């Protein structure tokens, strides 16, 4: 098996065993990027020089007998929503074109300390708003399985990079499905951790009560390992959960007999494409064969999840994105402005793309006098009902399952002019963010040659259980298809 086809833990083992140097590994991935990037466009900025010098450092540490971090020399792609000190961070926006942060996001610092080598910053929908990566100011990313289709979004660059062998693993962020949906559409594994488990310090804020950083990988084992690197308390994030971390990789026993799984009716029947439904049904049968009791469960509040989300997330975004005013960093409209107000108006009109403006307008409307109670306050109450429905389900079930996305990868341009249809792409993933629970997407087969994702959801901080169920399924499914590029 070629290096670019290997999972991250295998590469880490080869480097540790001195069978290959960190520099060789980095070169192999940079060559792969050179070869396929024209077709896929997974990266906004490739950090070739930085990566090569970092890899040399790792090799020197290894030669000196120094422990070069748990994953010394393993390359990684980082979604361009995370700040990287001294390296451009654009968030897929003209507003931050050329912006070079003065500090590292906590997760970036942690993957650095673990010895990983950042290959570059991955493409994304502008400010993580979108489900197709078509909203990037720098142009869309193509799905490696079919270059005429979207990779999903907003972490579409991260997902495509891993699927195309342009990185063995990646970091993404998930506000309403932005890790899991692109993972599903690109045939990889993606986990949105419990809200508060992974630090948001240095994650450019979209909707602060929903945003979480998480791993995007080839295998469940890699996913568990990368979670172990990035998770844990951070005093720089006031919503960070204190406490000891479990051993995520150690939790992967594959033993799931006796567990109970609820199949969420509201997320797995109406509006789900036939091909997705078929693969999903087969995977539920597999789960039963593994000794997991599966039965259908109805969580009625989920019917309103999408509406509540598309009020709450834009409302938080309209407040968060007020910071982009052309004063302290980022774009400022060129030319004379009459006064500071005109400078703000012009900077924001020129710096933000269409979808970002749309969400700022939507959120501002929902928060404005006369509409606050009908929209924002009501959406927050619906959020309570969703939290309660999940809570009741955990009394009965260990995990809940559903398809990750109602369809496989759709065509570029197919939904981009119709916001409501695009928003419906997130229908299966949104309740998880509203309740702050962990959920993972796992490839469960192909439909018409395109990957289908299977979603496993668990109670807060039960990542070990979610990962282990996914691990057992992964072994049983044996998904080994790869895109041809």
């Amino acid at each position, binding site marked *: 098996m070629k290096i670019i086809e290997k999972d991250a833990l295998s590469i880490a083992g080869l480097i540790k065993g001195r069978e290959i140097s960190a520099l060789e590994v980095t070169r192999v991935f940079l060559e792969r990027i050179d070869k396929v990037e024209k077709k896929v466009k997974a990266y906004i900025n490739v950090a070739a020089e930085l990566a090569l010098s970092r890899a040399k450092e790792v090799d020197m540490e290894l030669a000196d007998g120094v422990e070069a971090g748990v994953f010394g020399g393993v390359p990684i792609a980082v979604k361009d929503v995370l700040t990287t000190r001294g390296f451009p961070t654009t968030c897929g926006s003209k507003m931050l074109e050329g912006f070079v942060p003065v500090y590292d996001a906590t997760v970036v610092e942690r993957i650095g300390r673990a010895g990983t080598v950042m290959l570059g910053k991955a493409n994304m929908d502008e400010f993580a708003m979108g489900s197709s990566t078509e909203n990037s100011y720098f142009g869309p990313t193509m799905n490696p399985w079919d270059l005429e289709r979207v990779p999903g979004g907003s972490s579409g660059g991260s997902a495509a990079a891993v699927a195309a062998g342009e990185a063995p693993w990646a970091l993404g962020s998930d506000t309403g499905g932005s890790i899991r949906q692109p993972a599903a559409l690109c045939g990889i594994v993606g986990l949105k951790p419990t809200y508060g488990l992974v630090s948001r310090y240095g994650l450019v804020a979209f909707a602060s009560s929903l945003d979480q950083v998480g791993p995007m990988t080839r295998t469940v084992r890699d996913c568990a390992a990368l979670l172990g690197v990035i998770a844990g308390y951070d*005093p720089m994030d006031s919503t960070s959960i204190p406490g000891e971390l479990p051993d995520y990789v150690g939790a992967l026993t594959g033993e799931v007999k006796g567990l109970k799984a609820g199949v969420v009716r509201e997320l797995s029947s109406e509006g789900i494409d036939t091909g997705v439904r078929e693969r999903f049904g087969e995977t539920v049968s597999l789960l039963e064969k593994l000794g997991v009791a599966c039965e259908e469960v109805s969580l009625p509040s989920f019917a309103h999840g999408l509406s509540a989300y598309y009020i709450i997330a834009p409302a938080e975004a309209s407040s968060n994105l007020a910071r982009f005013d052309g004063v302290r960093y980022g774009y400022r409209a060129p030319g004379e402005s009459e006064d500071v107000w005109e400078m703000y108006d012009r900077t924001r009109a020129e710096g933000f793309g269409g979808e970002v403006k749309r969400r700022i307008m*939507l959120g501002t409307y929902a928060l404005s006098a006369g509409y606050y109670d009908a929209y924002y306050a009501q959406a927050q109450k619906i959020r309570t009902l969703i939290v309660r429905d999940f809570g009741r389900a955990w009394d009965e079930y260990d995990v809940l399952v559903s398809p990750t996305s109602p369809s496989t990868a759709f065509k570029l341009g197919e939904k981009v002019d119709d916001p409501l249809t695009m928003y419906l792409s997130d229908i299966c993933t949104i309740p998880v963010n509203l309740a702050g629970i962990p959920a993972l997407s796992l490839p469960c087969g192909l439909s018409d040659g395109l990957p289908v994702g299977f979603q496993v959801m668990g109670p807060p901080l039960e990542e070990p259980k979610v990962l282990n169920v996914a691990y057992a399924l992964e072994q049983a499914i044996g998904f080994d298809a790869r895109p041809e590029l």
Partner: protein
Amino acid sequence: MAISIEDVEHVARLARLKLTEEEKETYRRQLSDVLEHARKISEVDTSDVPPTSHTLPLRNVFREDSLRPSLSVKEATGSAAWAVEGAFKVPRII
């Protein structure tokens, strides 16, 4: 839930966004569509339901107010479009 051009202009003013006439019409139509869909949540009886603003059982998080390393003035102003002698410059305010 149809919203008017005036609504769009009001919201754009609040959000500090200068919109073209064409954008105003597009957003009027698209926001009406999304709000029409979102309007369905008003049918749910939530009279006894408290709101959820976030999902953690955390309350205020405090720390000692002690000196820690921080960015220099040069670093903090280095990314600005227009900074002079450690200050951010903007056009006329009043």
